[in-house]
C-alpha cells in the first residue's frame, strides 16, 4: 500500500500563547514546535498498515525551514520518505489554499490512501483532509479510529457523537481524517533517528506548485478571550452553593 500522511507542525500544546504586536497572529519568537497530535495518530495508523500489508509511507508537510524537524521525527518513527513544501506564508493561506498545495504535491504519487489528522492544535478547523479529498476527486471518511484493508478497498471505524460508532466501506484510493486515541502511539527511538538520516526528503516550493493562493477567508485579528481561567469558589450553604453550581453547569459549561 502506498500511503501518504499529511502532517502539520504546530506550536507545542502547552505553550503560553501571546498575541503578537500586530494582533494578527501569536508571538512566535520563543515558541517550541511539535507534531500535531491527531497527525501523530494518522502516522501511527499508516505505519501499522504498512507493517501489516507492506508498502510505503510518505509524509508531506508545508511550512518554513523548521518543519524539517517534524519530517525527520516522522521518518524516525518509520515513515519511508518525506516531501517538504517550502512555504513561508502558511498563515496567510486559507484551508483551501493549503489543501491546493498539498494536492499538487501528492497528485503525482498516485497513493492508495491519504491520511491526515482530524484537526490541528492551532487553528483547529478540521478541513484540510476533507478539502484534499474533493480536490483529488477521491472518496473520504472523517473521524476515523481504525482502518482495515479489504479486497475491495477499506473498512473503517468512524466515531459518532455520544459514544456511538459506525463502520464505513469505501474503495481505494481514498482520503481519511484520523481521530486521536484510536491507536497507541509509538515513541521515537534512537534507532529510528539514526535510520532516518538516510531517508529521502524531497523539497517543492509553493511557487513550483503554481497554486492559486488568494484566500476567500481571512483571519483578521486574534485576541485573548474575555474570561481567563481562575477558580470561582461558590459560596453559601450547601444548598446555595449547589444551586449556583447548577446555574454554571447549565449556562456556562452547558452540560445540563
Amino acid at each position, binding site marked *: 500500500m502506498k500511503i501518504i500522511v499529511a502532517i502539520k507542525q504546530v506550536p507545542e500544546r502547552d505553550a503560553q500563547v501571546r498575541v503578537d504586536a500586530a494582533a494578527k497572529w501569536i508571538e512566535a519568537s520563543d515558541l517550541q514546535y511539535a507534531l500535531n497530535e491527531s497527525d501523530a495518530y494518522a502516522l501511527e495508523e499508516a505505519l501499522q498498515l504498512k507493517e501489516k500489508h507492506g508498502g510505503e509511507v510518505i509524509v508531506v508537510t508545508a511550512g518554513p525551514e523548521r518543519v524539517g524537524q517534524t519530517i525527520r521525527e516522522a521518518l524516525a518513527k518509520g515513515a519511508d520518505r518525506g516531501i517538504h513544501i517550502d512555504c513561508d506564508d502558511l498563515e496567510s493561506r486559507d484551508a483551501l489554499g493549503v489543501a491546493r498545495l498539498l494536492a499538487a504535491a501528492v497528485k503525482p504519487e498516485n497513493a492508495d490512501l491519504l491520511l491526515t489528522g482530524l484537526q490541528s492544535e*492551532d487553528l483547529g478547523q478540521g478541513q484540510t483532509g476533507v478539502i484534499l479529498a474533493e480536490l483529488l476527486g477521491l472518496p473520504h471518511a472523517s473521524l476515523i479510529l481504525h482502518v482495515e484493508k479489504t479486497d475491495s478497498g477499506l473498512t473503517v471505524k468512524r466515531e459518532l457523537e455520544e459514544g456511538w460508532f459506525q463502520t464505513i466501506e469505501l474503495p481505494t484510493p481514498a482520503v481519511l481524517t484520523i481521530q486521536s486515541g484510536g491507536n497507541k502511539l509509538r515513541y521515537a527511538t534512537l534507532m529510528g533517528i539514526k535510520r532516518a538520516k538516510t531517508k529521502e526528503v524531497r523539497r517543492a516550493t509553493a511557487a513550483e506548485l503554481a497554486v492559486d493562493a488568494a484566500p476567500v477567508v481571512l483571519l*483578521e485579528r486574534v485576541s*485573548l478571550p474575555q474570561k481567563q481561567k481562575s477558580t470561582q469558589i461558590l459560596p453559601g450553604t450547601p444548598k446555595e452553593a449547589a444551586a449556583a453550581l447548577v446555574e454554571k453547569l447549565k449556562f456556562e459549561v452547558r452540560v445540563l
Partner: protein
Amino acid sequence: MSGILVVQEAGRNRISFEALAAGRVLADLTGLPLETAAVGDPNSNVFVETSGPPPAAAYAVQHPLLESYTSDGYVLAFEQLIRKLEPSYIVFPHTYQSRDYVPRLATRFGQVLIGDITGIEPGPTFVRQLFQGKMNGSYRHQGDGPCFLSIQAGAFRADAPQPGTFTIQPFEPEIPASAIRTKPGAPFRGSAQTVDLGSAQLIVSVGRGIKDADNLPMVQNLATALGAELAASRPICDNGWLPMERQVGSSGQTVAPRLYLAIGISGAIQHLVGMKSSQCIVAINKDPDAPIFEVADYGIVGDLFEVVPALTEAVKAAKQ
C-alpha cells in the same frame, strides 16, 4: 437572489435551532431574509417543530439515496439546492456530520467553511476559538461567493421550540447511484462491559474524602442524575470500593471530559495528571487549601456529605 440559508440536521434539534438563532443574528446584521433546509421527510421532527419566528421558506431535501447519510449524497444535494437558491450565507450546526461534508461542499464553490463559530459581530466578522480555546480569531469572508458557516453547540441560545407553522417545500436533487462511493453501516454502541472513561463526556470522581464504601451510593446518585460516569482516585480502587478500571490518574486512566466533578479528592499530582485536561473541573472538598482547587474552574468548600445530596436534588430539578 441572496439570503441566509440555515441547514438543519434531523435528530439534532437543539443544535439546529441554535444554528437558526445564529442565522437570525446574521439576518439582523445583514437585513437578508432567512430560509431553512434539512434532509428528510417534511413530517420529520426537524420540520414539525421550530424555534422563534418562522423562516421565509423551508425546504425538505429528499431522495432515496439520502436516507443514510453519506458525504457524496449530501454534497451533491446541497450543491444543487445552493445553486438554485443562491444564498449569500449558508449556516450549519457544527456537528460531526457537517464537518464531514461541508468542507467538500464549500470547495465546490471555491469557498472555505468558517467553522465552529462562537460569535457573530458587525462586519460581519465571525469569531472562532484558536489554540484549544486559549485565543479567539476574528474571520471575514472575501469575494462574491457564498459564505459557509457552522455554529458551535451552545454558542447561541435557541428560543424555546414550538410547533412549526410554515410551508415546507420539497426539493428533490438528482443523485446518480454511481455518485455514492461510500457504504455506511448502522451505528452501534461501544462495548457496554468495559468502562470507557476516556470517551465519557461527564465524570463524577470520588476520593478519600468519601471515607467509607457505604457512602458511594450517595455519589452514584449524583452521577446518575447528571448522566455521568463514576470514577475514582487511586486509594478508592486500592481498597476495592470501585474496580481498577474506574481509576483516574497516573496509574489509571487519563481523561478529558467536558465536566470533571472531583468529590473529596485532594488533588495529589498522581491524580491531577490523569484529569487536568478536562474542559471544566469542579471540586468539592472541605479543605480550602487542597491542591485540587488550583486546577478547578469552580469549587465548593464544604462538607461533601451535605453538598452532594443538595447538588443531586438541584440537578434533578434543573433537568425537569
